[in-house]
């Protein structure tokens, strides 16, 4: 039984395509199921005659610069689909096998529109901060998430970007928090860790690296690590990206529990985030640093206990080197969160610690970025990854120069000291930090404790680096909290 055929005849103005192209469209649409006849052609007298012969003459008077679209099909659905296919074929850009692209793509917008994928894609922006805004805005406009590695992005721009991203249903990671692992792909500074059920939302780059590496050591993997930027939990930004990242992980089937890693958040933001987290179906645990909860390692251990996973002995290498009488703490950090953790743990024992990122403003060290003189006497912890010290030079995880200079200066000053440092391994970091640090430690001759953040699978290899540093006399710990406590023990032994 054959249903009565249905037909579509229309004339369109302002559309022109050459006859070869139109014949291709007619042939392709004609091959569709349920389509019995197709004529897509410019409405020239010849083509109108053809159409009349097929019983598809237009009702209105046609002119040769109009496009005739005439289709017959077995039923309405096939007809509608065929007409839609004609429209799509006319609109489709025929990608020429033309000459190779010789014109460089200059912006994230151009790069994303040249991308030929329907799959997940995101942008990574590490251009100088003031210019990062337009590149990130391109990604959001294209409906893609973006990791802004750049620092120096004005906070009001960060807020505007994150609001726009929220409205567009995408995520802004960063700025100034160069860590993310998305579906196993490490972006920016990140370690090679196993995949697993724990999602991290991190307003702290090195904090997220410390946590993910300890979890990996305990045999627990991460689903995703979403770095939301060091300022995200400030009053000004209000946790915009944290809230979006939590929602993303809540909807992600690979994520069974979430750990929120941050420096001390603004109290109002902390409660808003806690409220939002309580609404989610995935359990959210906080590892926000504060004087009351100063220890990321303890937070990891708490999570492991909750998961019923045994807490391993965190890897370390100890040395026989001891501190001289009256020694002070000299902390030279690349990671801001790790520096904070060290100060939070040490302050109750040592008292005031001076810093360029101090626990209290009156302990601040004024730093001249063009010639950083960080040789203040007494207990000092310096964050060399702070914005003021990375203007015009690479991050200390890539370029060790400033830290090695500081080490040499302390040694030369004659002030008795215990040096506490972090060395962060993983993608994007110095490919062999021990190669420069071990000789510098030997030359300095000071007792040194190193928090070595990384995994065996990292390109640098945790054990390889630990052994090289230990051979130079350093005490080495995978946990920054343990490293800090060990430095305090050395100082205590010296008092």
């Amino acid at each position, binding site marked *: 039984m054959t249903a009565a055929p249905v037909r579509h005849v229309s004339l369109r103005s*302002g559309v022109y395509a050459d006859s070869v192209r139109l014949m291709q469209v007619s042939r392709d649409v004609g091959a569709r199921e349920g389509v019995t006849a197709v004529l897509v052609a410019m409405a020239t007298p010849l083509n109108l005659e053809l159409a009349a012969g097929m019983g598809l003459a237009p009702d209105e008077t046609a002119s040769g610069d109009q496009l005739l679209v005439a289709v017959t099909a077995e039923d309405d659905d096939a007809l509608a689909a065929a007409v839609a296919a004609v429209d799509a074929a006319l609109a489709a850009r025929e990608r020429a096998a033309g000459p190779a692209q010789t014109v460089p793509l200059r912006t994230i917008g151009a*790069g994303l529109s040249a991308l030929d994928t329907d799959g997940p894609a995101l942008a990574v922006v590490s251009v100088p901060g003031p210019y990062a805004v337009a590149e990130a805005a391109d990604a959001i406009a294209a409906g893609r998430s973006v990791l802004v590695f750049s620092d120096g992005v004005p906070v009001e721009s960060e807020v505007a970007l994150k609001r726009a991203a929220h409205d567009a249903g995408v995520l802004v990671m960063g700025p100034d928090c160069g860590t993310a692992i998305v579906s196993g792909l490490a972006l920016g500074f990140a370690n090679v860790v196993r995949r697993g059920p724990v999602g991290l939302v991190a307003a702290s780059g090195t904090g997220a690296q410390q946590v993910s590496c300890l979890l990996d050591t305990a045999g627990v993997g991460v689903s995703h690590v979403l770095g939301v930027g060091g300022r995200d939990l400030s009053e000004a930004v209000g946790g915009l990206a944290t809230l979006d990242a939590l929602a993303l992980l809540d909807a992600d089937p690979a994520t069974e529990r979430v750990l929120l890693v941050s420096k001390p958040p603004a109290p109002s933001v902390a409660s808003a985030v806690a409220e939002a987290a309580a609404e989610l179906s995935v359990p959210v645990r906080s590892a926000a640093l504060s004087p009351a909860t100063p220890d990321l390692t303890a937070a990891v251990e708490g999570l492991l206990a909750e998961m019923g996973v045994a807490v391993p002995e965190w890897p370390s290498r100890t040395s026989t080197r001891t501190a001289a009488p009256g020694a002070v703490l000299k902390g030279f950090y690349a990671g801001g969160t790790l520096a904070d953790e060290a100060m939070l743990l040490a302050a109750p024992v040592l008292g005031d610690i001076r810093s360029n990122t101090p626990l209290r403003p009156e302990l601040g060290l004024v730093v001249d970025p063009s010639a950083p003189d960080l040789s203040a006497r007494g207990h000092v912890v310096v964050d060399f990854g702070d914005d003021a010290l990375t203007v015009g030079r690479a991050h200390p995880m890539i370029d060790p120069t400033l830290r090695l200079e500081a080490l040499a200066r302390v040694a030369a000053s004659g002030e008795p000291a215990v040096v506490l440092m972090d060395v962060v391994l993983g993608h*994007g970091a110095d490919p062999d930090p021990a190669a420069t640090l071990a000789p510098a430690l030997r030359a300095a001759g000071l007792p040194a404790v190193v928090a070595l953040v990384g995994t065996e699978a990292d390109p640098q290899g945790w054990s390889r680096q630990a052994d090289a540093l230990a051979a130079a006399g350093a005490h080495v710990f995978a946990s920054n909290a343990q490293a800090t406590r060990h430095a305090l023990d050395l100082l205590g032994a010296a008092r």
Partner: protein
Amino acid sequence: MRLLSGTPTVVAAGVDVFSAALRAQGADVHDVDWRPPGFGEPADLAALALDRRRAAANRTAVERVMAAGSHLVDVRPARDVLGLPDRTLLHAGPPIGWADASGPLRGALIGACLFEGWASTVEEAERLLAAGEIALDPCHHHRTVGPMAGVTSPSMWMYCLEDPVTGGQAFCNLNEGLGKVLRMGAYDDEVLTRLAWMRDVLGPVLQAAVRSMAEPLDVKAVLAQMLQMGDEGHNRNRAGSLMTLRELSPAIVEVDAPSSDVAAVLRFIGGNEHFFLNLGMPTAKLAMDAARDVPGSTMVTVMSRNGTEFGIRTAGTGDRWFTGPANTPVGLFLGDYGPDDANPDIGDSAIMETYGVGGFTMAAAPAIVRFVGGTVPDALATTERMYQLTLAENPAMQVPILGFRGSPTGIDVLAVARTGWLPQINTGMAGRVAGTGQVGAGLVQPPRECFEQALAALAAETRAAA
């Protein structure tokens, strides 16, 4: 959201150490060749990038440009069409007075005074013009465009184009042909005789023919087709001119005029490879005028030159002109003329590039690139580059060699700043000395100053609107 649904493809701008780390993990990474912006305060660039109105405003502006049609509905003298009073002359480009006018503009203004009978000698015309007794006004202030000097006087006939969608109108005078012509600054007897014939014969015949046509000529459709026939619509209009002749001929032949006049009209049109330009320009003007006054839009609506200054306007800043000193084109010269004979850039014809054709569709016109001093790969690269300056691709204006990709349409001031690339314009070259006429053709770019000023003004408007 798709972010977590699988291993993402990455597009990266900036430090290459991160891309290298991604590649080491086997990721699909596409680095863009990012450079610091060519100009613009970082705070201005950020303000525009973050303007919440911008995406929608630019979409609106682009949609209006794309939707505009263009029908040739009438041919009438400028006096009637524009209500142009005696002793008033229109000219190309942003506003300018006699004192600052270059040779070809002065030559054309002198010629127009002679043509209108306001002066009987060159000296008298110069005196009138220098004394300010002839009012000068930009074509663009009257929904009008004029190629080269663009000088339009009350007795000159104009094409009247209408957008069938919005009813918008745009106007342009009739093309005189090549060589010694008024628009190139020539004003000798040959020029004045031709202008008189155009006034007395060509104009009336075209009017009668156009008015007699059952269906108005769809100029936009001709423009779309000529791009597929080796024209780019600015410096090469051969196919477009012939198609126009084909469309108009039956009606011209039926005009009640002496057969010698009809033959002269057909011969004139057939012998003028740029006959279509004066139809293409108001077609582009109609489309760009449709996008006037869209607050928050960073799209350029006018690029135009008066022989001394280059001026642009944007959709987001209304009728303000942003100007800078016009550059001198680089290209090939007729006869024994050389670079020293060329006047700085002149004419409203850059409306074609503003609309996304001309220099923007150089890839469609391989035949022209050698004439303007380039190679075929240059032409392809030029069009490819323009895609990064523009907001959209116009599906009605396709470039065959790029897989029938739509022309790069809607210049984005923000993209010009960020890429540091300037729009590419194909253009004729007028002699710098008044009276010379055409000396060559070539390529030219706007001065950066126009875009710098426009960017700062758009950013100021954004802040004021916030």
